[in-house]
């Protein structure tokens, strides 16, 4: 059974810290007795060896890109170059403080400024803010900018339009900005229904949030028309950059007419996912929106970098300047790839996805086109008729050492499986994936229970999520009172 670190007991070495040179009593006398802590937090009491074993063994239970193929649609699980981790840990970067005077941190400011410029180039925008810590944070920033812009223009805007295929963060963000959400339909070909969009556009629309390619992996060919229609009612077009991996060096959201974009550095620009974070979600804007950017902006005068607040800034979304440790990874990544390397990323992302689509379309339903960009959506509808669902296929893939594609998203496709191989995978890995899926499909006919009971080789199988939600157990609690702390500690009187 999996042991919690609290269930282990060995010697916790306090000599890992320097000794005190003043006695405790004197020190504590500097604080009023009333503010002193009387309880002892039940933190683990273990040796360094036990800590190392515990977390090392935990890590080995995880699927991860370094070990497994992860064709998770919309996540861009590409290889995370190790040199980027080394660069982010370099002493001058890891040990600099955001409140150092400008003259004392020109290196860090240069990294931020040049990253802003690189992203502006790649996305076709005029300036970027690197403050947002994640994609959803970027969306909030972008909509707040839109809100401030419209308010400055004296416009009454109450609505945001969002496609029905959109990621959940989009409507959640709009609500946070006080906007009403209106959904725009996707047509039978998997594109934004232009007629439906037009019917919903009026003077009250602040923005249309969308992505291109769409969440179905299809390029929105009408994008120029869409942008024009939204601009005609003085709305802004917002680009959700989750699918940027399809466009590098091929085309740019700024050129399509987008006014605001966010980019996910932990997707397109190789920042590792870190088991859930941290990422980074920089936001790019066109010229007219620059005054509203979060503060401070990073500027350059001659060869000196400096900070300056935006003229009508929306304020701040977080402390300091952004997730520097993530940003510098993307900066180095872009420098390593260069102009041609960036284009190659998207070419191979698109090539790999189309190859998989061609190989899988006879076994799985593909509700839309048989050409895609960097990802595609297939349906396990046919398999469901034989008694096995997308979820079960996802679990069975784990037994083959392959992480499942994204399942049940987008909501408009039944038994959806969204596949995004990324550009860093080889044809051999893709062929293996196809072979495994075909094998599982055969198994659905010949031995469906094997799939329904999967996974068989993981530490756990078919977790009881109902119980987890009905009887939430969200932290460990010590059963008996804590042992008295063994030190000459006048605060602990019992």
């Amino acid at each position, binding site marked *: 059974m999996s042991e919690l670190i609290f269930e282990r007991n060995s010697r916790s070495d306090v000599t890992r810290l320097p000794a005190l040179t003043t006695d405790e009593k004197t020190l504590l006398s500097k604080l009023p007795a009333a503010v002193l802590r009387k309880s002892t937090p039940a933190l683990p009491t273990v040796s360094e060896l036990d800590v190392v074993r515990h977390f090392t063994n935990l*890590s080995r239970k995880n699927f991860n890109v370094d070990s497994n193929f992860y064709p998770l649609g919309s996540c861009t699980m590409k290889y995370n170059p190790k040199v980027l981790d080394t660069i982010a840990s*370099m002493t001058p970067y890891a040990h*600099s403080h955001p409140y150092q005077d400008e003259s004392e941190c020109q290196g860090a400011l240069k990294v931020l400024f040049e990253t802003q410029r690189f992203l502006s180039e790649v996305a076709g925008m005029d300036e970027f803010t690197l403050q947002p810590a994640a994609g959803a944070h970027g969306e909030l920033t972008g909509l707040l900018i839109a809100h401030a812009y419209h308010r400055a223009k004296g416009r009454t805007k109450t609505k945001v339009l969002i496609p029905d295929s959109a990621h959940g*963060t989009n409507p959640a963000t709009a609500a946070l900005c006080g906007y009403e959400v209106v959904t725009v339909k996707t047509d039978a070909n998997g594109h934004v229904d232009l007629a439906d969009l037009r019917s919903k556009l009026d003077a009250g629309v602040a923005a249309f949030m969308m992505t291109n390619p769409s969440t179905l992996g299809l390029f929105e060919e009408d994008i120029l028309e869409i942008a024009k229609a939204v601009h005609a009612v003085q709305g802004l077009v917002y680009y959700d950059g989750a699918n940027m991996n399809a466009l590098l*060096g091929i085309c740019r959201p700024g050129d399509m007419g987008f006014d605001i974009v966010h980019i996910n550095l932990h997707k397109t620009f190789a920042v590792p996912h870190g088991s859930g974070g941290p990422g980074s979600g920089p936001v790019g804007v066109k010229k007219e929106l620059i005054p509203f950017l979060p503060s401070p902006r990073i500027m350059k005068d001659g060869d000196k970098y400096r900070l300056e607040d935006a003229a009508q800034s929306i304020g701040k979304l977080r402390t300091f300047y952004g997730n*520097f440790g993530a940003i510098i990874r993307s900066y180095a990544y872009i420098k390593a790839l260069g102009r041609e390397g960036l284009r190659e990323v998207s070419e191979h992302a698109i090539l790999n996805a189309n190859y998989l689509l061609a190989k899988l379309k006879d076994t799985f339903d593909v509700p839309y086109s048989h050409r895609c960009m960097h990802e595609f959506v297939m349906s396990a509808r046919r398999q469901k008729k034989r008694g096995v669902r997308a979820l079960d296929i996802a679990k069975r893939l784990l037994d083959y050492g392959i992480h499942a594609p994204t399942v049940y998203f987008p909501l408009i496709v039944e038994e959806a499986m969204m596949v995004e191989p990324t550009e860093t995978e080889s044809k051999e890995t893709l062929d293996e994936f196809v072979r495994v899926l075909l094998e599982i499909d055969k198994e659905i006919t010949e031995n469906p229970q094997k799939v329904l009971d999967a996974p068989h080789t993981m530490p756990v199988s078919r977790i009881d999520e109902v119980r987890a939600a009905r009887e939430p157990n969200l932290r460990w609690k010590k059963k008996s009172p804590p042992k008295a702390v063994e030190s000459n500690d006048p605060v602990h009187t019992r």
Partner: protein
Amino acid sequence: MRYISNTDNDRKEMLEAIGVRSFEELIEKIPASLQNFQLDIPAGLSEPELMHDLGATGRMNKHAADHASYLGGGVYDHYVPTVVSHLAHRGEFITSYTPYQGEASQGTLQAVYEYQTMICELTGMEFSNASMYDGASSLAEAALLAIRATGKRRIVLPATLHPEYKAVVRTYLSCLDAEIVEAPAVDWALDGKKLAALVTSETAAVVLQQPNFFGVIEDARAVSDAAKKAGALFIACVNPVSLGLLEPPGEYGADIAVGEGQPLGNPVSFGGPHFGFFTVNEELLRKIPGRIAGMTVDKAGRRSFVLTLQAREQHIRREKATSNICTNHSLCALKSAIYLSLLGPEGLRRLALLNLQNAHETHDRLLAVKGVRALTTRPFFNEFAIEIDKDPVKLKESLLKNRVLGPLALRRFFPEMKNAYLVAVTENRTKDHLERLVEAVERA
């Protein structure tokens, strides 16, 4: 450097299998006008070239590894044990994905569960989420939660709150029907009487930063009482290392406790990534933003961990979600769990005592220097505000000459405070650092 795995031959075979003659056919639907541009980005670099380039840029930076850093203001130069990065940077943690597929992520999920437990123990609160972006945005989310939970509009912020935290709360609330009022300070701490007058029955929450931005330890119970009296929620924003010695928010009546987790095992890294911790008691559990890991069993009865209470989250509730947050700062939270595991309760206490010791020693030495005076005599933990009556340019020159970074000039936030400085002193400051600091100030 490229990182592509396909060979030229692979590319050829794949195009054939797809049924096209060239790659361009795959993007022919993209309007030609959109493809007509050149990226103004230099050619790519090899790995050694990249390292040299980033190394050169790094040399344009001063940093705390070869300077003595007295900078604080929300993030601090604590010592990060080697084991922390060694474990957290394992590929199995750093390149794994969000643990949506529970069976493939038991390592992450158990680590998150353990992190949640440790944060609850530290803060004395009942439940914690899996972490958020940083202390400031966690505070803003707490304000949003308070407004939603109470149906009231007013948030009372202390004047002694970190200026950037104030800005973030204002930005988050800027589009909503909400009101922010600032409770004034007297002698660098909250004025209790004036606070009570501002906390009305229309107040959703009162916020306290402990210790406050100026390092002063506030009267938390007075704030708690004022909130309770008016039926408002009490949000405490606390320094986690201080909780090794100071009473935790769960014991002085906080309804929500948040804060910046960076001091727990995360490098300063020019301001990020760090993480915000977010804790509540039972009454607010169903309204908590962000991800949460829970313990349950699998179909064979084995102990298992899983993301739970997801019905609140953006990917399900969409516009009715408790927040729009998607990521947590998992790796940063993991570092704090490893760090706290290495310290244990005794280590945490020793750590806090060392901070207290070093800060008070530095304080006393500085006050003995001509031209330096304390701005307040109120109690402090590891950060304090002083006035140094010396020409700022000469002072800075003298400090840099002794390889000292900081202290933080408060005029950065409050232009009228021309000679006020915030001095942060952690367990990572040595006797040698102290001598260099004192000498630099004396000499200026």
